[in-house]
């Protein structure tokens, strides 16, 4: 049983939970994820680690309600317990030697990009953060990103806050202005990661994306999280979750992630306010 130490509703859809899991906190690194199971009847769902505090022994997760399990999780309060919490899973992001980086986050994906920005900023790298949201109401982590970036660029689809436009517009502009990034990290909805990768490809800038396919065990056992990378089948849980965005087959990933979407909505009579969840964030 894993106790919830802290909870914040970052916006209408996105929740932050800080969970007591000292073993995981001791080991967690940027880019890794956990798998949770709320209760006895729950599914096993992967979530990327948004932050960790080794001294306090806590792991922070930030997530958006996209189905029954995330809804149950969002309904828990401080002092409640999560039945199962396992991690840290996956290979940590390789950040060594990075001098100048653009960290691109989309919606709730910003939460996953945060530890990467933080680690790079703390290691002395120049970190430009580009965070994109649909509108002003769902902007998250602005203060946090301000603290761990050299420059923070926020853009919204409808222009209701800061710059109007897409993260790819900002990224392209920054590259064209002569910012010679040695790495771009893109985390967010699959289409966003796809288009960021397409944006950087002509410039030959190495681009890492963090994939979140359907998964059960997180140790390579089920093979459900297979993704095609450079024409090869990889398991995101043990070979990833980070991959080279220039060679990921995003369309296949999108197709496979839709496996249970229709069925879940029919079966559980779940009225998701964001049909398609994370992909529309």
């Amino acid at each position, binding site marked *: 049983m894993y106790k919830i130490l802290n909870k914040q509703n970052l916006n209408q859809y996105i929740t932050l939970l800080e969970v007591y899991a000292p073993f995981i906190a001791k080991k967690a690194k940027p880019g890794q994820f956990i798998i949770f199971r709320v209760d006895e009847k729950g599914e096993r769902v992967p979530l990327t680690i948004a932050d960790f505090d080794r001294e306090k022994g806590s792991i922070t997760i930030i997530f958006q309600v996209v189905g029954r399990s995330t809804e149950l999780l969002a309904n828990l309060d401080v002092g409640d317990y999560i039945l199962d919490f396992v991690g840290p899973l996956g290979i940590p992001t390789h950040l060594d030697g990075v001098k100048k980086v653009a960290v691109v986050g989309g919606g709730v994906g910003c939460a996953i990009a945060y530890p990467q920005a933080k680690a790079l900023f703390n290691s002395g790298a120049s970190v430009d953060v580009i965070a994109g949201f649909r509108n002003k109401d769902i902007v998250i982590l602005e203060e946090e990103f301000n603290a761990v970036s050299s420059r923070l660029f926020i853009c919204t689809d409808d222009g209701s806050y800061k710059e109007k436009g897409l993260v790819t517009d900002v990224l392209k502009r920054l590259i064209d202005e002569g910012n010679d990034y040695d790495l771009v990290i893109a985390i967010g909805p699959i289409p966003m990661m796809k288009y960021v990768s397409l944006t950087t490809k002509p410039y030959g800038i190495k681009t890492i994306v963090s994939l979140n396919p359907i998964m059960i*065990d997180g140790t390579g056992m089920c*093979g459900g999280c297979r993704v095609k990378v450079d024409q090869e089948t990889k398991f995101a849980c043990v070979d990833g979750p980070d991959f080279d965005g220039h060679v990921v087959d995003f369309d296949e990933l999108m*197709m*496979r992630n839709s496996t249970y979407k229709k069925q879940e909505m029919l079966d559980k009579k779940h009225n998701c306010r964001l049909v398609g969840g994370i992909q529309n964030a």
Partner: protein
Amino acid sequence: MPNISLKKVKMPELVSTTRNTNYEEVSLGYSPEMAMEEALRCLNCKHKPCVSGCPVGVNIPEFIQQVASGDFLDAYDTITGTNALPAVCGRVCPQESQCEEVCVRAIKGESVGIGRLERFVADYKMNTDQDYEIKNKSKNGHKVAIVGSGPSGLSCAGDLARLGYDVTIFEAFHTPGGVLVYGIPEFRLPKQIVADEIERLKELGVEIKTNMVIGRVLSIDELIEMGYESIYVGTGAGLPRFMGIEGEELVGVYSANEYLTRINLMKAYIEYYDTPIRKSKSVAVIGGGNVAMDAARSAKRLGAEHVFIIYRRNREQMPARLEEIHHAEEEGITFKVLNNPVKILGDENGQVRALECIKMELGEVDASGRPRPRAIEESNFEIEVDTVIVSIGSSPNPLIKSTTDGLETNNRGCLIVDEKMATTKEGVYAGGDAVTGAATVINAMGAGKVAAKAIDEYIMSTIVNKKAI
């Protein structure tokens, strides 16, 4: 007077036409009278061929004589002297190719029903003697860690705990049991049976820590630093193989591991559980082993109208237990043998719509001792299915190897061990599917036992001596 019947006492089973709609255990087990009658078929041979056919060396004639005379609890003690999981083994061991294969009674007629008797004894014990006292041996003050709580790890843990060791099992999943809980379906091995057997181990003092992925949360070296004097790696063959054919990425293609885990561990077949599973009309299961039978029978129980087993050799060469093949047939699974899948076809939404196969014929006997199948040119045909389950085996999980220095594997990814199950890293032992690739529950248990003995010798000689110096 021995019972001279050439046939085993029949074991009652659920009727095939109704059982394929539920998850109740198919085989119902013997009554005490049936068990005594079957036990009387044993000739109590002096040379005990059955014992040598058993990977864990259960003293079979002795326990059968005890059953024959109605001393069921004594029979239990005899079995558990060497086998930590009798209720499991009585159900899932391939007895026809082990103890029962070499039974003298099998020369003419059927062998003694050793597996059925073992199951009876274990069930009898559980049903009648819940509060029996465990004779705990005093602790010897030495600590051993076991990675993985499948049959191999459990058997190693049981033997070491009986020797007085402080044993901790680390399990990656939220429930212990390994393949016994995620792989083998309820209708073949009720999960309560596994839970009960694990409870017995806990009573012996074995500690089980779940949600611990060794290789990530703790490394093997860190376990050693934490004071575990020896480590046993029983992580199984948990890396599914795929065929590498076109269309395997389509929606509706599962590995048998994923399909069975959703059903067995995550209870996707029970409506109020949250884990989803595909509602299929027509399913192709590729492969001919026990896992393929389990997946096919599960698909039927989930409501599929048509379920096909696609196997590239003939029925005689199928690696599945005979009983499982029969049960599958009785439950309405269609066997399409001598067929090899070449392509999975999808619709415009990326959903599986058909499986393209090619017909096969058998040629010369190959290295596996079986006739080699070869494709008959231009015999391709399509089977309309909406789900494909790939069950062609699995490789050892690479997580431990990739995170531990000094642990060698062979070219198939299997951990290299010597005859005592010692790996190439001092103090680290391994066994079961992590060493052999996908094999049987009982072989994994046998390896766990050999390792337990070797670990005891290692700690008593090397470590204790070092401390004495």
